């Protein structure tokens, strides 16, 4: 049986939206899939060596469960984003959910291929030296070279 393939496009760089690509990619790899993640726009933030600045905001995120109802005016206050991020990280830890760095390492260990969108790297003037070394740089056409032959293709 031919090896199954999965491609994921990761476009978000917030703490909550960083999880699905890494969870799905690492799990698919464990199931024997050949996996590639194409990081573009804000998803590029997930390639930074240091992921401690990946945050979550309660602002404009009405579905986020909060311990107490919080009016938008309060969510706007300085420090709220850091507080929400800290609370979310504590919650993840308490429930035995892996950290982003751990999941990303597990992806790399399982040979998940990371591809960064060269155009958005240029657009945001990102410094490649701030990214992990296990990244290839390519464009949309290169993505289709792999994605066109996949069994599963997801946009996150």
């Amino acid at each position, binding site marked *: 049986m031919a090896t199954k393939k999965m491609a994921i496009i990761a476009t978000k760089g917030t703490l909550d939206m960083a999880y699905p690509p890494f969870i799905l990619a*690492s799990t698919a790899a464990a*199931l024997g899939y050949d996996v590639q993640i194409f990081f573009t726009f804000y998803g590029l933030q997930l390639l930074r060596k240091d992921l401690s600045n990946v945050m979550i905001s309660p602002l404009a995120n009405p579905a986020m469960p909060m311990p107490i109802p919080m009016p938008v005016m309060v969510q706007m206050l300085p420090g709220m984003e850091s507080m929400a991020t800290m609370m979310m990280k504590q919650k993840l830890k308490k429930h*035995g959910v892996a950290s982003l760095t751990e999941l990303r390492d597990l992806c790399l260990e399982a040979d998940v291929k990371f591809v960064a969108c060269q155009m958005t790297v240029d657009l945001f003037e990102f410094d490649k030296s701030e990214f992990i070394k296990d990244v290839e740089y390519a464009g949309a056409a290169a993505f289709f070279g792999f994605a066109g032959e996949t069994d599963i293709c997801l946009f996150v």
Partner: protein
Amino acid sequence: MNFDKEFDASGLNCPLPILKTKKALNDMTTGQVLKVIATDCGAVKDMQAFADQTGNTLLSNTEVGGKYVFFMQKK
């Protein structure tokens, strides 16, 4: 049941029990049995799904005092 290797995934949540099962199996040989202990109730369906998709055999799956115990035989 006899087993060749064991690991405790208690307290770990999805997808860690599966990823660690896969890693443990990598170091084993065909026919050997891995015992996994987990507390994540989602692992019950996931371990079966992992076995179905990878060709390894889930020999047994039991709940003992709030913990789930799996015996997985390597393909």
